[in-house]
């Protein structure tokens, strides 16, 4: 096999892995603090992609420019959903919690279908199909951006949780919400903030996706599935885990397609998933 092809394969894998990671980040944060697997994650991603799309089609805003706006909108949406839905089911049995967010997913997808039709929509920007040529290896510009922003976002989230007052309150809530409440932490408020931040980072992921991908009502399923796998693989509730999980899946898929056969792309990434779980059931960075 040609070295250039292998280098290209590695670059492809890392870049798409970075995209998987950024989609997984918000999901993992919410799970880590609240113990809720947000099954509406795909719908949130879809909503953020449509938001980014409409910012472009209605106001001419480039998806990179509208990134903070999309994140803000998703943050507010997160607070609304937390207040109206999640808050009320936090103490419900696990299965009810699963089904509630799953119901939200189905509802939002069908609402999108009704409002915006099943058509595929994408944003054409000057850089959406651009690539940088590094000695014959092509590096996709929008994916490189997504990759860099994913790392930055993970860093910022990590520092926020580790160093700030609100971060300490979040960690305290994650460890023991009753004890945290006794120490004067407003737990429902922390939950609102966490859900908001989780969705805001999903909003950033969606905005970045729109620089090279298209949106349609069930687009979430395509990306969210990989995000769930990345979270479990890397370790639930861990930022480093989301990044590692995303990268491993991206690289495994990429090499599987080139070294073995494109038909076995998913086989390789799922095999990697199963092997890691057999060796470390809690995921790479997960705690027992």
């Amino acid at each position, binding site marked *: 096999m*040609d070295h250039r092809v292998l280098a*290209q394969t590695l670059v*492809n894998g890392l870049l798409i892995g970075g995209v998987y990671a950024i989609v997984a980040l918000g999901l993992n944060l919410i799970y880590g603090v609240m113990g809720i697997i947000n099954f509406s994650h795909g719908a949130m991603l879809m909503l953020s992609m449509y938001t980014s799309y409409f910012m472009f089609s209605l106001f001419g805003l480039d998806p990179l420019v509208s990134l903070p706006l999309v994140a803000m909108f998703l943050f507010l949406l997160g607070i609304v959903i937390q207040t109206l839905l999640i808050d009320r089911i936090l103490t419900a049995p696990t299965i009810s919690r699963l089904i509630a967010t799953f119901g939200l997913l189905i509802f939002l997808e069908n609402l999108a279908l009704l409002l915006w039709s099943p058509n595929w929509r994408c944003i054409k920007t000057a850089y*959406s199909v651009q690539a940088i040529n590094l000695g014959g290896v*092509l590096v996709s510009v929008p994916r490189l951006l997504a990759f860099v922003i994913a790392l930055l976002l993970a860093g910022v989230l990590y520092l926020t949780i580790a160093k700030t007052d609100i971060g300490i309150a979040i960690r305290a809530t994650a460890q023991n919400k009753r004890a945290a409440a006794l120490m004067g932490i407003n737990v429902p408020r922390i939950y609102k903030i966490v859900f908001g931040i989780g969705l805001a980072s999903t909003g950033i992921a969606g905005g970045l996706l729109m620089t090279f991908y298209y949106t349609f009502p069930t687009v979430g399923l395509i990306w969210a599935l990989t995000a769930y796998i990345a979270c*479990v693989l890397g370790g639930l509730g861990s930022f480093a885990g989301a990044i590692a999980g995303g990268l491993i899946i991206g690289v495994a898929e990429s090499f599987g397609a*080139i070294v073995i056969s*494109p*038909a076995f792309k998913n086989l390789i990434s799922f095999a990697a998933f199963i092997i890691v779980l057999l060796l470390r059931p809690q995921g790479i960075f997960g705690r027992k």
Partner: protein
Amino acid sequence: MKRRCSAISVVTIVLGLLVAACAPAKPTAMPTPVVPTPVPTTAPPIPTPVPQVVKIGGIYPLTGAYAALGEGDKKAIDLAVEEINAAGGIKSLGGAKIQIIYADSQGDPKIALTEAERLITQEKVVAILGSILSSTTATSAEVAEKYKIPYLNEGSTSVTLTEHGWKYFFRATPHDGFYCEEEFKLLKHMEERSGVQVKTIGLMYENTLFGKTAGDVWKQLAQKYGYEIVVDIPYDAKVADLSPEITALKAAAPDVVLLASYTQDAILITKTMKQMDFNAKAVMALDGGQILPMYVEAVGELANYIFAEARWNKDLGKPIAQEVNKKYRDRYGVDLDGHNARAHTAVYVLYYALEQAASTDPEKLRETLAKIEVPADKIVMGWDGVKFDEKGQNTLGHGCIVQMLQGEYKTVWPLSVKTADAVFPVPRWDER
């Protein structure tokens, strides 16, 4: 924590299955198992001596998932019937008018079967038109065969439909194998005209029935036409990323790429080819996502120079196609397409058969259809005409291969109706 992990793993797998279950279905390429023929129980209906109206059954999916296709065909059929009746109906039958009795198959083979039975025994239709989907055509044509009623199929392309030895079944459209072969014929033609040789081919197709069938047919045809397949890439149409696939394509560097894609993956393929700077002498898509306006809008100028098998194109270089399309557009606000242009054609084939047979006796109508020759200038399709072989397959059919040139699809094949010369080899991305 451990229990949570395993719960999530289970749910993740369930989601995976959901994704797999949601794989898209291709309406026209469904081979269907057919139940053995029951013994005929009823004699064909006896026609009245001087009919005022000739009743023809029309089985179409008018509701359900394929309703849009059914509605499109119905509109084209209504237009054709109106044209014929306004021009004096069937002259050899004293100006009898054609009337279509529609039946809704809902895209369901079982419903198509019972509706065919109802049309024949209760509505006393003399012939049946139908039914878009190969699966519903298989079951309803079986019933027509049982009652000895001619069945004219406009657009079901599964190869097996004309392999049952049916005597009353006639298919106007070319079948799937034929459409694939048109791509190879065009390739040979372009090689000769340009002097540029094609030696290797890369295949890339979505991994459900539509794509896989195309992949198998291509492999046989490549052997027949002397091309080497250097890379074979089945892929999942609902995918986040196709850069590994395009990297594999690029590593194999085929002269020509053949695609069988739906819409979303077609968009992704084109964009990724550009991004990864993959160049081939030609990229040819089978009837699929690439011909839809949605694809063209999504990829914009990146669509330039792509070839697509469209079956029919609004620029077709023949007067009747332009005339009918204008009427259709004036009335319905959209252009005819590859599906309903074939339905319009089928009505005319049936009309010419009735005119020639000068009878509504199904037996006479069958005999006439078996030997009828409808010339090319009488139909809107870009075919050389309609003439059925002993299996009931039209032998004069053609595909209609278009190429995107300056933002518009131009017909480049067959040569008899082309509106532009194919650009081959196509310019590299950096030369555009």
